[in-house]
């Protein structure tokens, strides 16, 4: 079988969506990995109350870890000049007032942009809501990164989500290990495919009918 992109490459491609001046909140999963590839001038936000903070603390520099400087996932980061600290009221206003871009993980994305990313079906205790629903509803742009299919090969890009929803019609862009897809009022538009893959092969692993972009191209990290 042909090779899919690895998670690190998907993260690199997702980070390419950001440009100087953007503020971004990174979800759990592949989005976490984007932290290493954020372009210059992009400020990263964490919903527990910091914006524009520095790089994460690596495993071999544990002496730099300070409990006062952690992100929403509990990971340690380094303070830098120009960052801001604030409370959750301010944080969720940032998130909800349409000023933030968010890169989220996903379990399923539906044709109309519905996103399921918090719960694999265990009822109320089946997952963690956290700030994910706020990000999905409030961000000015929602980029969802996920593997194109489940481990058993079933599509994660579906006609209708079967897992409990995070938010309705919220997804703008889907970036997978096979493709970059824009969600538009006309349907899902296939913009890019992984090197060596054809549009037809991607369609086969995707439930909704894809519109093929006129300028369809290969995923490119430059």
């Amino acid at each position, binding site marked *: 079988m042909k090779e899919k992109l690895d998670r690190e490459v998907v993260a690199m491609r997702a980070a390419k969506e950001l440009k100087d001046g953007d503020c971004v909140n990174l979800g759990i999963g592949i989005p976490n990995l984007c932290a290493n590839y954020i372009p210059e001038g992009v400020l990263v936000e964490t919903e527990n109350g910091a914006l524009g903070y520095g790089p994460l603390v690596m495993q071999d520099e*544990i002496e730099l*870890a300070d409990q006062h400087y952690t992100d929403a996932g509990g990971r340690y980061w380094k303070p830098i000049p120009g960052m801001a600290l604030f409370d959750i009221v301010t944080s969720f206003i940032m998130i*909800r007032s349409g000023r933030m871009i968010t890169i989220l993980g996903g379990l399923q994305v539906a044709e109309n942009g519905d996103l399921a990313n918090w719960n694999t079906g265990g009822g109320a205790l*089946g997952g*963690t809501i956290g700030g994910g*629903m706020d990000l999905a509803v409030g961000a000015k742009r929602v980029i969802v990164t996920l593997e194109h299919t489940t481990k058993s090969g079933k599509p994660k890009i579906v006609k209708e989500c079967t897992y409990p929803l995070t938010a309705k019609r919220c997804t703008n862009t889907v970036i997978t290990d096979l493709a970059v897809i824009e969600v538009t009022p006309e349907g899902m538009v296939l913009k890019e495919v992984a090197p060596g893959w054809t549009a037809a092969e991607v369609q086969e692993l995707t439930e909704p009918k894809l519109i093929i972009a006129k300028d369809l191209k290969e995923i490119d990290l430059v």
Partner: protein
Amino acid sequence: MKNKVFNSFDEAVADIPDGASIVTECWGTTGMSQNLIDALVRKGTKNLTLITHNLLPTVLKLEGIPSANLADLLPQLKKIITPVVGIQQLGAGAFVKDYVEKGLEVELTSHGTLASRLYAGAADLGGIYNPVGVGTILEEGKEKRVIDGREYLFEKPIKPDYAFIRGHKADFYGNLVYWGVYRADQPVMAMAAKCTIAEVDEIVELGGIDPEHVVTPGIFVDRIVKVPEDAMGSVKITKAAIGKIGEIDFIRKLLFK
């Protein structure tokens, strides 16, 4: 000058009755009022409603790491309002499940909605129309209303009886500053609660905090207790805990790049 400083955590929580509602901070182990929580565990107050961002995974405790742990309060709870029941990787969801089967009520909410509901409680509003949760399981039992073409859910304010908050410095009026991301939920919790109890690293004279830098004005802080250097959650103990966390491989991978 009215004295807000209490000498012990036990005294500071002594009047909390059975059935009270308490809001407190928990992001993993950061920003917790561990000493107040421990005092409430010692007191054994029952039928509590707990409002919190998170319930701490118990795994650190099992590994013998001196770390804050809100889960100790679980046996005393009637209800939890939270966006995070537990962190799956650390097995806390299953931990809470046992209590739910024994009757613990869980009200799920999103974290931003929790912030807005606490604001609404503080600002004396009767309710808010919230865009988050529409089309999800959070709709259940809630009024839905279309305003200017968009759907919203009616959410009630939260006005807890007590807030346990974790500050960095307090002056004698109760003016507070925080340290880093320990700030998070604390300011809105302090404003929403009827009685706010703060544990802090340091208590300073009036004038020890620049008026421009005050984050929580003293009117919102009713009681203050200083965290001793050798107590849970103190800077010294926390540093030691981070060191130990670094020795446990799977947590290390989770928390460090």
